[in-house]
């Protein structure tokens, strides 16, 4: 059975169209950076022992570090955080609230082509 999570992973691995949501402000991006460092970096960051980065790299994603990508979209990021994918679990709203999730999305899409 091909799972929904696997389909999401494939979607994440493919290049995607530029995002269409409203431009975030610098404060939101900075907040997103902080939330990313707390919740995402331990798995998706740079350096050794980052299983999210390693997993994406093994699947051919380049760059594998989320902060270096320019093809992520806010809906895609929110779907992964709220639904998980493969061994990445779901994150509850007591962990990453909706405003913080918006901020993560703003941070990870900051370098996308406008």
């Amino acid at each position, binding site marked *: *059975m091909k799972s929904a*999570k696997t389909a999401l992973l494939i979607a994440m691995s493919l290049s995607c169209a530029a995002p269409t949501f409203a431009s975030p402000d610098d404060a939101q991006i900075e907040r997103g950076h902080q939330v990313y460092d707390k919740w995402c970096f331990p798995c998706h960051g740079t350096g050794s022992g980052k*299983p999210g980065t390693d997993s994406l790299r093994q699947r051919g994603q380049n760059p594998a570090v989320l902060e270096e990508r320019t093809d992520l979209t806010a809906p895609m990021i929110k779907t992964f955080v709220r639904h998980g994918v493969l*061994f990445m*679990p779901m994150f509850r709203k007591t962990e990453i609230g909706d405003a913080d999730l918006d901020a993560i999305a703003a941070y990870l899409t900051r370098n996308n082509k406008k």
Partner: protein
Amino acid sequence: MRVPPGVTPNDFSDAIKQWEEAVGKDWVFTSDEDVDLYRDSYSPFWHEDLEPIPSAAVAPDTVEQVQAVVKIANEHKIPLWTISTGKNLGYGGSAPLLGGSVVLDLKRMDRVLEVNDKNHYALVEPGVSYFDLYRYIQDRGLKVWIDVPDPGWGSLIGNALDRGGGYTPLRDHFDAHCGMEVVLANGEIIRTGMGALPGSKTWQQYRYGFGPYVDGIFSQSNFGVVTKMGFWLLPEPEAFKSGNVLVQRHDDLVPLIETLNYLMNSNIVQGTTTIGSPLLMSRAAAQTAGGSGGSALVMSPGGPTIEQLEQVGRDQNLAYWNCELNFYGPPKVVEAEWEFAKEKYSVIPDVKFVDGPTYALPYDPKDVDKLPKRQFGIPSLTIFGLMGRSEGHMWFSPIIPMTGEAVFEAQKVFGQAYHDMGVPAISQLFVFPSSFFPRSFVILCGFPIYHDVEKNRRSREVFKGLVKAAAEHGWGEYRTHTAFMDTVSDVYSYNDHALRHFHETIKDAVDPNGILSPGRCGVWPKHVRKARA
């Protein structure tokens, strides 16, 4: 809207309104979209009706709010399932055992209340993760180390209450705790140990207080909601050293472990030691085309004989067994301890030693990625790199004696069990015997989880088969996934389940309405026991 079992929709709506008044509307979750976030991300019941899905979640921010939430639940007889960070993945995550329970989510209670680097302890709330406490200590330059389990996002309190283990001298997390604050099912609050003395100055320094020591009954249980807990911390050592001991023959494992016992129980070797096998790992890795070789431990029927394996070891210059020893303390002391260990091991013919690095401490935070993080109490998520393409995992984790003979027996028993159940052992992930707790070994077997009903059903059958096979040889699990809590509880059956009956007697006395975490570790409230009888 989902409704808890045995509760009318009207009563549930009434309780939800009261919870909203107690904790704020934003922190009571009732929509399917929000409540589904509490499902077990690694559930072995994906796409099956058997999956226990909660009806709602409530997230208090203070102990007073916890008291209010519990009182409301008690009044309406609504089952609550308490979680701390909810990241107990592999053992149930944030999902309840009883479908329809309301999750009592303590993640918002994430305050580090005190860290003392003179008496070396911390006092924290349930939502504090290992990452949180580590950052708190690093930001303030405090001279203490924490002990971490493999995933760093877990709760200190949740992990200790589940009796988890780590890697440093304070690796037995429940044993390292000192003092609790607990909200009982009627909303009453107690403090254990010296915490029962108003104005106590030693709540985190002397465990026992006065009278019966009750802390243990709040671990792996459902007798209260722990809202604060103290932990002893390790004074930052001046040095860390490791050394590897390699022995050549199969039977050398017996003296290898016997001497390890002496060194560990004398506090010369400290922290978790894992028995390894360069020979078996090499063979398994070759069989899985460069894979992890994680199944190497078990000996399947029909496999090569010990003599044949020893010959391969000689031909390829691979030791049959090894173990890495860790030493914490002043530089001169750790060097002397390693020399002493080598002296003790030198009686084993052909033993070899490999000096590991000696680290002068404190370390530079910039060098964290170069350090053995687990041995240094540095939290990470590195363990998830073992998960491959699975969509989760669960752990079978029996305790076996810390002897070579027990390891030999476990190799055969689990090899035979897999064979009898028609499961290729090569498909399983085994962690070799490890001393996560003093004076015993834990063997960990990881079962991959998939979004595949048949695969998961089969895994559940095999899991239960291993529990049975282990129990028949006198080995029990130290902890288990919610899906197997009844299965594991059933094998702890001495004197017609007398211990479980005792647990049930306590449960009925302290939680007569049976609202707290029904079924946790096999302890069910009276009304559910009657319905299941």
